[in-house]
C-alpha cells in the first residue's frame, strides 16, 4: 500500500557537484518500503516542474522512521529538489513499485550498479541477510563515486570501476563482472543502471545461467499504473507485450525483459 504523504526533510547533503542525499522523516515509508521501491516526489507546489519525479529509496532507518534518497540534478525538478532545506515539507507518493526478490539466507549474491543506479542497491544490500554479497559499482569518475564506505560495510567484496579510470579500474563495470563470472558464480545478480549496462549484465547472467533481476527506468506520469506511459517490452507466450515499469516493475527478471 502506498500513500500520499507530506513529510519533513531532515537533512540535505551535497555528495558531489550534482549529487545530493536527502534524509526524510517518514514513519510510513521507513516501515513499509522494500528494496527496489521508489517514491514519486512533487518537487514544488504549483505548475513549475508539473509532474512528480520518481526517485528510488536508497536506505531506510526503521528505528528513527527516516529514509534517504540520492539523486542527481538533471533538470528543473531535481534542481528545485536540490535547493530544499531541512524543515521543508515534501509531497511524496510511495512506496511504489515491486521490490527485489528476497533470496535464501545461504545465497551468494551480486549487485551490479551503474551511475545513479548504484544507490538503490545500497538499500538492497542492507536488507539482504545472505551468505555472501559482492558489489560491482560503476561510476563516470571518482567525483561521483560516493558512499563507498557504506557499500563496503554492507558487502563482502566490492569492485569499483570508473569510465575515466580516476578511481578503481578504468572501464565498464560489466567488464569486471564478466571477468569475475568466469572465475566464480552467484545464486542471483541484481542490477540497476543504464539500459546498455543492464542488457550486458542480463546477457552475462544468462550465459552463466544465473538468475538475474533488473530495475528499469522510463519517463513516468502517474507512477501507479494508471496512465500507461512507462512501458518496457516483456516476453509472453505468443510474443511480447508492454508492461508498466511503475507497477509491474520497476524490478523484472532479466529473462522477462526484451532489451532492444
Amino acid at each position, binding site marked *: *500500500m*502506498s*500513500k*500520499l504523504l507530506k513529510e519533513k526533510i531532515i537533512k540535505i547533503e551535497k555528495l558531489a557537484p550534482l549529487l545530493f542525499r536527502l534524509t526524510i522523516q517518514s514513519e510510513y515509508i521507513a516501515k513499509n518500503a522494500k528494496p527496489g521501491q521508489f517514491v514519486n516526489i*512533487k518537487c514544488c507546489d504549483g*505548475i513549475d*516542474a*508539473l*509532474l*512528480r519525479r520518481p526517485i528510488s529509496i536508497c536506505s531506510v532507518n526503521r528505528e528513527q522512521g527516516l529514509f534517504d534518497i540520492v539523486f542527481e540534478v538533471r533538470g528543473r525538478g531535481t534542481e528545485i529538489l536540490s535547493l530544499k532545506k531541512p524543515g521543508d515539507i515534501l509531497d511524496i*507518493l510511495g512506496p511504489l513499485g515491486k521490490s527485489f526478490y528476497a533470496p535464501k539466507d545461504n545465497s551468494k549474491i551480486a549487485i551490479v550498479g551503474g551511475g545513479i543506479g548504484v544507490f538503490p542497491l545500497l538499500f538492497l544490500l542492507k536488507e539482504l541477510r545472505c551468505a555472501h554479497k559482492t558489489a560491482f559499482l560503476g561510476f563516470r569518475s571518482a567525483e561521483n563515486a560516493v558512499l563507498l564506505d557504506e557499500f563496503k560495510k554492507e558487502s563482502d567484496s566490492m569492485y569499483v570501476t570508473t569510465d575515466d579510470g580516476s578511481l578503481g579500474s578504468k572501464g565498464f563495470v560489466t567488464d569486471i563482472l564478466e571477468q569475475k563470472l568466469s572465475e566464480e558464480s552467484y545464486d542471483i545478480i541484481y542490477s540497476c543502471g543504464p539500459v546498455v549496462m543492464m542488457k550486458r549484465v542480463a546477457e552475462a547472467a544468462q550465459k552463466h545461467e544465473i538468475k538475474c533481476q533488473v530495475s528499469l527506468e*522510463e*519517463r*513516468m*506520469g*502517474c*507512477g*501507479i*499504473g*494508471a*496512465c*500507461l*506511459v*512507462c*512501458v*518496457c517490452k516483456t516476453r509472453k507466450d505468443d510474443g511480447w*507485450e*508492454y508492461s508498466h515499469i511503475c*507497477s509491474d516493475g520497476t524490478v523484472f527478471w532479466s529473462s522477462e525483459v526484451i532489451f532492444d
Partner: protein
Amino acid sequence: MVISEDMNIAVDIAGLKLKNPVIAASGTFGFGREYSQYIDLNQLGGISVKGLTLEPRQGNKPPRIAETPAGILNSVGLQNPGVHSFIENEIPYIRQFDTAIIANIAGNTVEDYCKMAEILDDEDIDAIELNVSCPNVKAGCVAFGNNPSGIYEITSQVRKFCSKPLIVKLTPNVGDIRETAKAAEEAGADALSLINTILGMAIDIHKRRPILANNMGGLSGPAVKPVAVRMVYEVCQTVKIPVIGMGGISNGDDAVEFLLAGASAVMVGTANFVNPRACIDVLDGIKSYMLKHKYKSIYDIIGALELNQ
C-alpha cells in the same frame, strides 16, 4: 470535505445521472482501481475509463510522455486490454462503487465503433463516450474527428447501436470547433465532451530528436486551460445538448470556470498524476465556491457567465 447538506450538486447529462459533476477523464484514471488506494471512488460523479478498442492494443513505443511548461505531451496510443476484457474484468470492479461508468471507445473504422457500441450497449455501463479525436494513433479516429462530416458520419452510425447516453468527445485540433460540435449534435449525440489533447511536439535538443518515440503527442494539463474554456464556451453557445468540459482542471476554481462557461460537468485528467486526490479536491473546491457565494444548486452556476460589453 465541505459540509453541504442542503446543496444540490447532482447533474443530469441527457439521462446520465451523476451525483456530482466531477468525472475522472479517460486515459488518466486507468479503470479506477489504481486510485482506489488514495480516494474513495464512491465520491466521484463518474469515471471515464481508459480508451477501449475492439481488440487489445499494445500502444506506442516509449517514451510516451514529455513534460512541457505547465503541461504534458502523451502518446500512449490507446494501450488497452480490449473491450471484452474490460467487460469481464473491469466493469465488475468499478460497479462495486457508487459512481457512473463511462466507456470511452476508439476504433479504426466506423464498423469498429459500431461493434463496440453494440457490445457495450448490453453491458452495465452508464454512457458511451466516442473518442473520435485521439491524436496518438495513425489510422482511424483522428480522421473522423477533425471535420464535421466525419463526425456526423460516425456519430449517426454509432447512434443506431447505442441506446445509452452517447457522448461525443471533440478534438481542439480544428479551425472552428463549433462546426464539429454542431455536426455531432445533428447526428444524434446526447452530449459532447471537450477538449481532447492539442497536438504538440517537444524536442530533446541534445539528442536532436523528439522526446516522444512517436515524435508528436497530445498536450494536456494547466497550459491548455484557457483554450479549453474558450472552446467550451463557444460550443455551449452553439449547441443545445449538454457539454462536459475539461482541459487543465486542477482545482475547484478551474472547474467553476468551465461550469460558468456552460459545461454541465467536468472531467479531471492530467491533474490526477500530479495529485492522486485531484478529483476530490476539485469537488470540494466547487462546493466551497458554492458555499461562499451561497449557491444552493449547481445549476445556478452552469452557464452563468456574463460577457463584458
